[in-house]
C-alpha cells in the first residue's frame, strides 16, 4: 500500500500573513511530496507484512524494518507522518487558544496557557538544526519534547522518538520559515499560535489520553 500525498485542508494562501503561500506550496508539493516518494521507493523492498502498515504504524516498528531500508524510512516515512499531521494541526480559523479537556490538561500540567506556550517555544528555539517541537501524550500525561530531523515522537527512543503520541507539532526545519522569516525562528514560532487548529489538538488529546 503506497503512501500518498494528502491534500491540504485549506488553500496555500489561507494562512497568510502568518505562513505565506509560497512557503506552504513548496513545503507541500516539494518537501512533503519528496518524503512520500522516497518512502514509497523503500516500501517496495519491505516484506509483505510491513508493507500493509500505515505510515504511523511503520515508524513505530523501525526495529523490524530491514537495515538496508531503515534509515530511508526513518527519515522519509517519518517526514510523511510528521507533515501529514502538521497540515491537520493548522487552520485559517484558529481560535488562538485551546478549549475542552486539553485546555484543562495544559493548565494543570504547565500552570497556564502562557507558560505552556513559552515552554513549547523554548523547545522549538532550542532544537539545533533541523527538527520539530512537540506536545505529546505519554502514559496519559502531557509533555513537551523535540525531535531531530524527521524523527517522530511515535518512534522509540532508539530512533530519536519518545514512544509517545504527538497531539501538536511545529516544524522548525529552515524550509518551513526561511522565505518569510529568514533566520528569525522566534517570529515564526510566534506566528504559529495564530494558526493552530485547537479543535484538532483536542480531538487528538481525546484519542491519546
Amino acid at each position, binding site marked *: 500500500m503506497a503512501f500518498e500525498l494528502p491534500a491540504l485542508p485549506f488553500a496555500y494562501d489561507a494562512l497568510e500573513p502568518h505562513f505565506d503561500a509560497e512557503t506552504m506550496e513548496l513545503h507541500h508539493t516539494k518537501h512533503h511530496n519528496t518524503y512520500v516518494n522516497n518512502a514509497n521507493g523503500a516500501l517496495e523492498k519491505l516484506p509483505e507484512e510491513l508493507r500493509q502498515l500505515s505510515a504511523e504504524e511503520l515508524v513505530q516498528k523501525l526495529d523490524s524494518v530491514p537495515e538496508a531500508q531503515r534509515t530511508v524510512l526513518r*527519515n522519509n516515512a517519518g517526514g510523511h507522518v510528521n507533515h501529514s499531521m502538521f497540515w491537520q494541526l493548522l487552520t485559517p480559523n484558529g481560535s488562538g487558544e485551546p478549549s475542552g479537556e486539553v485546555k484543562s490538561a495544559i493548565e494543570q500540567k504547565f500552570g497556564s496557557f502562557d507558560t505552556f506556550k513559552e515552554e513549547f517555544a523554548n523547545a522549538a528555539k532550542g532544537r539545533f538544526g533541523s527538527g520539530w517541537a512537540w506536545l505529546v501524550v505519554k502514559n496519559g500525561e502531557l509533555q513537551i519534547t523535540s525531535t531531530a*530531523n524527521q524523527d517522530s515522537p511515535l518512534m522509540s527512543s532508539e530512533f530519536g522518538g519518545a514512544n509517545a503520541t504527538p497531539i501538536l507539532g511545529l516544524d522548525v*526545519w529552515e524550509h518551513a520559515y526561511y*522565505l518569510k522569516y529568514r*533566520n528569525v525562528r522566534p517570529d515564526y514560532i510566534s506566528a504559529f499560535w495564530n494558526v493552530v487548529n485547537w479543535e484538532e489538538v483536542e480531538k487528538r488529546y481525546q484519542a491519546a489520553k
Partner: protein
Amino acid sequence: MAFELPSLPYALDALEPYISAETMHHHHEYQHRNYLLRLNTINAGSPYASESLESLIMSATGERLACAVEAWNHSFFWHCLSPWSNGYSVDALGRAINERWGSIDAFKDAFEQSALALFSSGWTWLVKMQDGSLAIINTTASDTPLKQGLIPLLALDMWEHAYYLDYQGNRYKYIQAFWPLVNWEFAAQNLTS
C-alpha cells in the same frame, strides 16, 4: 575574549548570480553572527571564556559545542568561495584528487552525491585523512573534520539557510552553482600547509 564576526573576504554581491547578496547578507550578518553571539553569552564568566573556537570544538559539549562548530565552519566556508576563482589547476591538490578519484569530474560527482545524501542540516567536505589520503565526508550538527582529527580542504554548507532563498529545495542546482565559485587556491593551501 568575546568572539567577533570576521569580515567576508569579498563584497556581499560578489558571488552573484550563483549566490545572491541577500543570501550572503543573512548568512553572514545574522546566521554566522548569531552563533558567535550565543557563544559569547553562554561563555561569559565561565572557564571557557578565554578559549579559541578550535579549543572549544575539542572540549565543549551541548549548545557550546554546536555553536563553536558552526561558527568555525562558516569562517572556513567563506574562504572556500571566491568571485576571482581562477579555476582548477593540476597542482599538488589536483594530483592528489586525480590519484584518489581518477579525474576532477569524478571527484565532483562523488562530492555531489555525498552532499545530496545529507538528509538534514549539515556540511560536505573534502578532507585530508591522517594517512595523507583525500576523502569526502559529511558532518551534521556538532561535528566538524577538526573534531575527527582530519584536515579540511574544502567545505560546502548544506543547511537550508545556505540556499533556500536562491534555490528553494533544489539542492542540485545549488551544488552546481558552487563549482564556479570554488577557491581552489585556498583548498590547495590547506593541503600543503
